[in-house]
């Protein structure tokens, strides 16, 4: 089984990166393959609303290749997708939003490639607004027919400078539990992903 996490922070080794690794650790222990990819601080264009993906229906986005091209195929292989972002003005980073918009739409255009997969959002915040960023990621999961496991709290770690979120005891316990829950859920549903009810019944 494969879990693919994507870091939406332009700081490659900051709090968001640490939180994502806290979620992946129990999955590795449970024998999953894991990947941690980077979208924050990479060249990624926003969705242009051209509907090219709907016309071509070849599981790609028609924009010239940028970091989306390297990330999307890995997400399609995954049983669980974990998207992480810091909180910028009570929302996700622009790079993460560009990824969410294009991933969600290319999936929908190709008969819902993501349906039945597990999705989880992970957010770092200094003081407030993290739950709104958390919601922004989850909305893409819900509209794509994905399954979102809850945990002991909305998956938020508190920190400003790199290393601070790792000291947030409650956040760390939340991420660890989330990883274990994804393992539990994946074991139950991943073998049956193809039976997930499609949009037309």
């Amino acid at each position, binding site marked *: 089984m494969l879990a693919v996490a994507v870091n939406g922070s332009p700081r490659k080794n900051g709090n968001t990166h640490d939180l994502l690794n806290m979620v992946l650790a129990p999955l590795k222990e449970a024998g999953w393959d894991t990947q941690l990819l980077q979208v924050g601080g990479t060249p990624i264009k926003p969705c242009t609303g051209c509907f090219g993906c709907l016309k071509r229906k070849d599981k790609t986005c028609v924009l010239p290749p940028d970091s989306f091209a390297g990330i999307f195929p890995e997400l399609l292989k995954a049983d669980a997708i974990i998207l992480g972002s810091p909180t910028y003005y009570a929302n996700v980073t622009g790079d993460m939003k560009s990824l969410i918009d294009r991933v969600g739409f290319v999936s929908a255009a190709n008969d819902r490639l993501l349906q039945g997969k597990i999705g989880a959002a992970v957010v770092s915040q200094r003081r407030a607004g993290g739950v709104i960023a958390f*919601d922004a990621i989850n909305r893409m999961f819900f509209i794509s027919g994905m399954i979102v496991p809850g945990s002991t709290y*909305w998956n938020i770690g508190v920190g400003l400078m790199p290393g601070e979120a790792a000291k947030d005891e409650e956040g760390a316990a939340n991420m660890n539990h989330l990883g274990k829950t994804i393992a539990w859920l994946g074991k139950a549903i991943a073998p049956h992903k193809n039976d997930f009810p499609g949009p037309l019944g």
Partner: protein
Amino acid sequence: MFKILAVNSSPRHKGNSNDLLNCALKPLIDAGWQTKVLQLGRESVRGCAACFKCFQNKDLRCVLPEDAVSRAMAEIFAADALLLGSPVYLSDITSEMKALIDRTGLVAIANDNALKGKIGAGVVAQRRGGAMHAYDTLNHFFQLSCMIVPGSTFWNLGFGEYPGDILKNDPEAVRNMENLGKAIAWLGKLTIPQRDSYPALWNRYTQTQW
């Protein structure tokens, strides 16, 4: 046999929110689930008093005088899945629904996260706008209670002003709710038998000094 409880927090017991819930329940009835719709709207209910007596008593109950919330709470703990339906009041859920999720959520945490591994979904009826914020509110309750939330073909909302509007004029909402019901049936069959092995967890609330 699996059980799902649907709670309608609209003061109109036979309006659009109720219709959304019934659209979602239909595939579950077909799949052999036991289903029930509980009418919470218009009931006099109290909000959470944050007394934390539920943490002292640990008996799956709230100590406030019995009301529609405490009756709904008992049925929620007995069910495998939960559907919460609300109209949009000023871009959010109704106050009866808020009282339900506040009190049920905290009693659950007080009792070793009694909702863990159950399935939850929120459905929302709006005239024009605000449903997404109400939908987020319902999901916040599920997501901090260790419940599992399935997505559908869209966010679970429908457009209607007068009773019957959604069934007549919003076929996309009807299809979405039916797909949601099927998704719950699929998910429930796979996860409810596994609930006993749901991962152990540590919840900060249990360290409360109240």
